[in-house]
């Protein structure tokens, strides 16, 4: 499958790969002491939402998680391989892997299989390097960054993160940053929607959180949830 058709599908148009397609918004941001990963929950095949509450954040090992976007089949297969190799790596070294090692394994899978339509983010925590985020866009690049966004919805929030991200944010501030960023993308991208799932990884492990429709931050111009008293909403 050529990379160009992969890119055009990513824009949220008719699905070129003919299967469930995580037109998506995925985000990961590192803070001092950990990382916050976030994703929407919509899986669509063309205009049909085949799963409105999917989990796009996969656990690769205890301290490292993967955000998946692109073809659902491809990213699930890749994540299974990475879990397998990571688990063997843990057996050999007898210790928790570094985020970099897990990201390198993912890179080997991605770069060696150019036909795959997978844009992913690896993020986690290890004691030696702290919270780390690695972007792995289509084609198999691997690049370490303080924050990463992928998926069709990410196009709408680059400026948001450029403006709002700063070093030295606390865990709560980072979670809020990720939450609002995804909410913005969901407001504008037809292929992103549903719930927002958050995973925070730090030295004590991973904490998962699900933010339901009514708790997703209301973006200016959005319709309030049905049943809300319109008079109480600030326009």
């Amino acid at each position, binding site marked *: 499958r050529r990379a160009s058709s992969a890119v055009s599908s990513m824009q949220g148009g008719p699905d070129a790969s003919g299967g469930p397609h995580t037109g998506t918004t995925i985000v990961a941001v590192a803070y001092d002491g950990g990382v916050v990963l976030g994703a929407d929950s919509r899986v669509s095949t063309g205009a049909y939402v085949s799963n409105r509450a999917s989990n796009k954040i996969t656990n690769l090992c205890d301290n490292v998680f993967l955000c998946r976007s692109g073809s659902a089949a491809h990213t699930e297969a890749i994540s299974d391989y990475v879990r397998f190799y990571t688990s063997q*790596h843990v057996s*050999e*070294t*007898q210790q928790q*892997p*570094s985020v*970099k*090692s897990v*990201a*390198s*394994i993912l*890179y*080997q899978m991605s770069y060696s299989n150019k036909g795959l339509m997978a844009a992913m983010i690896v993020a986690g925590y290890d004691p*030696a390097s702290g919270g780390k985020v690695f972007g792995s866009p289509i084609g198999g690049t691997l690049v370490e960054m303080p924050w990463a966004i992928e998926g069709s919805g990410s196009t709408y929030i680059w400026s948001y993160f450029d403006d709002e991200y700063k070093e030295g944010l606390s865990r709560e501030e980072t979670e809020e940053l990720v939450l609002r960023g995804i909410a913005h993308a969901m407001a504008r991208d037809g292929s992103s929607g549903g719930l927002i799932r958050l995973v925070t990884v730090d030295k004590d492990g991973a904490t998962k959180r699900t933010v339901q429709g009514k708790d997703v931050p209301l973006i200016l111009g959005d319709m309030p949830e049905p049943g809300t008293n319109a008079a109480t909403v600030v326009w």
Partner: protein
Amino acid sequence: MSGAGSGYDLSVTTFSPEGRVFQVEYAGKAVDNGVPSVGVACKDGAILAVEKPEETKMMLPGSNRRIFTVAKHVGMAVPGKLPDGRQIVSRAQQECENYKRFYGNTIPTKVLSDRLANYCHAFSLYWHLRPLGSAALTASYDDNGPHIYLSETNGVSYRYYGIAVGKGRQGIKTELERLKLGNMTCREALKTVCKCLIKQRDDQGSKKFEIEMAWICDESDRQFVRVPEDVAKEAEDAAKREIEQEDEDSSDMES
């Protein structure tokens, strides 16, 4: 010549009734009768030293290397049969490179020495191969501190504070056990290591020896390199002086 293993020592795929594989033990003897080699882990690094007798006056000193750099952070001495040893070094270099390429990080020493031990062991499983007649004495310095590992020809691999193999190893090991290696710097330990090697030499004869030394320590920026010539010479000379002093003192006491 029949020895303890009569009949059961003809192939590496035969056990003796006591459960020994003689061919593997004989391979170990190739190491035991080889050049004396020492590895010590100190406070700020690790040292490897090998004492080589001068085979012939016509050979250029320093050309028969026994200590090799396997990766920036790991070095290895190969006592025993040198060609077999070079096979192990080559494999170790590949392991380090592959690990770095696949996992993005430098190989932890424990993983490397386990893999080398498995490699050596594999040679003892097949009738058409013979065991390698060399051990891998590995020195490294990573985030967990300095390490010395010995991966033996029979497939075991242990970590040591200090270890000696080859001729005279028993005497050297006894000396090492007396030291508090964890409190010494590499510079201090160099002199002691030279002393151990020089002392176990056969005194008769005008045989010349060359001590090949390499280390990985804070002073060398945590890279595995040959000990600089001037430092090596200083350590050897200081060791010789101390031995002469001890000899004088003991002969004074006798008379």
